[in-house]
């Protein structure tokens, strides 16, 4: 208990952390399987990352260095707020540099820089169930996962192709983990999906409102669903970043005036800033 804040280290009490760590361990043991857990009310609202916050709080140690991003950026208001929360209740060091962080909590993106074995990526998840748009009843989707009965999702993708000529899912694109469980990658753009495959970093997923935790252990196969004749294709705006010139990174479209003017900039602010600094140093 910290006398100054009046709360335990990282806000969550130790018995709750133990319960969450058990759920995480179970998740790691069964990659892609959603583990129900006794999610607590957090001092931030549901939908703001309460699942991610509980996972981060349970794995954080005093020597960790935390990075928080939302939409790939460190300076979005919600990322700022969550980072400030952990600075206040855990007193841990925070960073905006991907390479320096040991724990990265993210909403909607995977950093452009490849992550390493000494890092953990914590995703905020709104709807952990990849099948929820096709089958709303949780009791039923549970049965479908148990039987690996994923025909419904394949039919949905097939119907996309029949209607549009290609799969019309551009984010929260379903993946198969370790050839067994269908999993929601959280609403990251499909562009980021390939980064999940055999990633050296541990990937943890927390859904607070839906009370589920799941995990992808390091170096686990993560395959985006597709068909032989319609292979998975990540979507990216076909432009270069106006600030750093990158043609590889995921871009945000920025409207610059009301006459159709627009530009494209990296969504990963750390990646972009680093490239701009390198360019400036070279000049």
């Amino acid at each position, binding site marked *: 208990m910290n006398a100054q804040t009046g*709360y335990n280290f990282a806000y969550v*009490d130790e018995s709750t952390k133990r319960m969450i760590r058990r759920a995480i361990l179970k998740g790691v043991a069964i990659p892609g399987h959603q583990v*129900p*857990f*006794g*999610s*607590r*009310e*957090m*001092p931030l*609202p*549901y*939908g*703001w990352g309460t699942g991610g916050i509980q996972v981060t709080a349970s794995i954080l140690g005093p020597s960790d260095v935390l990075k928080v991003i*939302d*939409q790939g*950026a460190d*300076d*979005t*208001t*919600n990322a*700022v707020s969550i980072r*400030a929360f952990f600075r206040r209740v855990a007193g841990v060091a925070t960073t905006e540099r991907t390479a320096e962080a040991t724990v990265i909590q993210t*909403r*909607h*993106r995977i950093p452009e820089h490849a992550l390493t074995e000494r890092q953990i990526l914590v995703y905020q998840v*709104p709807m952990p169930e990849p099948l929820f748009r096709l089958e*709303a*009843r*949780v*009791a039923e989707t549970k049965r479908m996962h148990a039987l690996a009965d994923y025909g419904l999702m394949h039919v949905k993708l097939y119907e996309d192709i029949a209607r*549009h*000529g*290609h799969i*019309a899912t*551009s*984010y929260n694109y379903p993946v198969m983990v370790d050839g067994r469980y269908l999993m929601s990658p959280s*609403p*990251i*753009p*499909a*562009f980021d999906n390939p980064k999940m495959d055999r990633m050296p970093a541990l990937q943890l997923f927390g859904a607070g*409102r839906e*009370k*589920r935790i799941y995990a992808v252990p390091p170096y686990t196969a993560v395959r985006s669903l597709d068909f032989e004749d319609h292979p998975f294709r990540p*979507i*990216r*705006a076909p432009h270069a970043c*106006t*600030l750093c010139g990158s043609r590889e990174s*995921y*871009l*945000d*479209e*920025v409207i*610059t005036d009301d006459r159709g003017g627009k*530009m494209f*900039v990296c*969504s990963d*602010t750390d990646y972009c800033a680093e490239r701009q600094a390198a360019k400036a140093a070279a000049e």
Partner: protein
Amino acid sequence: MYVATKGGEQAIGAAHAWLAETRRGDATLPELTVPQIEEQLGLAVDRVMAEGSCHDRGLAALAVKQAKGDLIEAAFLLRAYRTTLPRFGASAALDTGAMHIRRRISATYKDLPGGQVLGPTFDYTHRLLDFALAAEGNALPAVPHAEPNTAQTPRVTELLAREGLMQREATSEAEPGDLTRDPLSFPADRAVRLQALARGDEGFLLGLGYSTQRGYGNAHPFVGEIRVGEVAVCFTPPELGFEIELGDIGVTECQMVNQFKGSRTEPPQFTRGYGLVFGHGERKAMAMALVDRGLRAEELGEDADAPAQQQEFVLYHCDNVEATGFVEHLKLPHYVDFQSELENVRTMRASAMQAAAE
């Protein structure tokens, strides 16, 4: 040269300061005190206690003040406080039969043991704005005082049950599930369902309960009894080994009597819909009792095709702290996903236009 928006931290700080200023309002007017809210906005305080599922009038009043009167926000504040408290045990079941009654009415009997006690109710007021109330310091009307009602006030449903007309509930000594510790799983047993409904949103349950009366669920309810008052909470600390009284809490209980046509194993009889909420909350207790009975459809072998009869639909969506979080999170940035959708729609439009041109 384009510079990305920075300064989220200062913006958040400034927004919070502005929020505090608007909460205070016109500084020439006296500031509301927490005891004033507790005493004079008592039903708001009760609703926050019920939906915040934490019985503490003082903290609920503070939450109402802090939330500028936004009761869902206030319930959330109280929940976020409640979750930090240790859970040291389960109390004995409340004996609402021994309630100190402030109000007790039955719609099924004209008179009954214990009598009809109207209590402080809006029911027979004429909803005419009382312009005199706009000025402070009005003398209160004289309230006639009566001796406290010490007569036994048996529950109406118990009177029916003794005659075999009301289905008895199965009793169990097992500790009920706790949905603040274990997430909902389905099918959920009745204790867990009632827990979820007791902390559920009044408006949502009201709408659902109403729908059962309008043909979505085929309910034929009668208010067997509504009682409002104070009831003792008893607890047996393991280190003492005997039961002690922790104190009284205010609750509203509603028992709805519903017809049941009978099944192969059970004769025709009445069945119960049950509602219990913290504080004085009749609308919520009644709606809860209607929905509770709706959710029993399957167990009683009735058709269960109306929304109020479907467990997952009702229980997953009745919590307003969860619901408001997920609805309101849509105002958080989604530009990464929207960008993917933009590219996606542009691609689809291009192929559609090409097809049209050919």
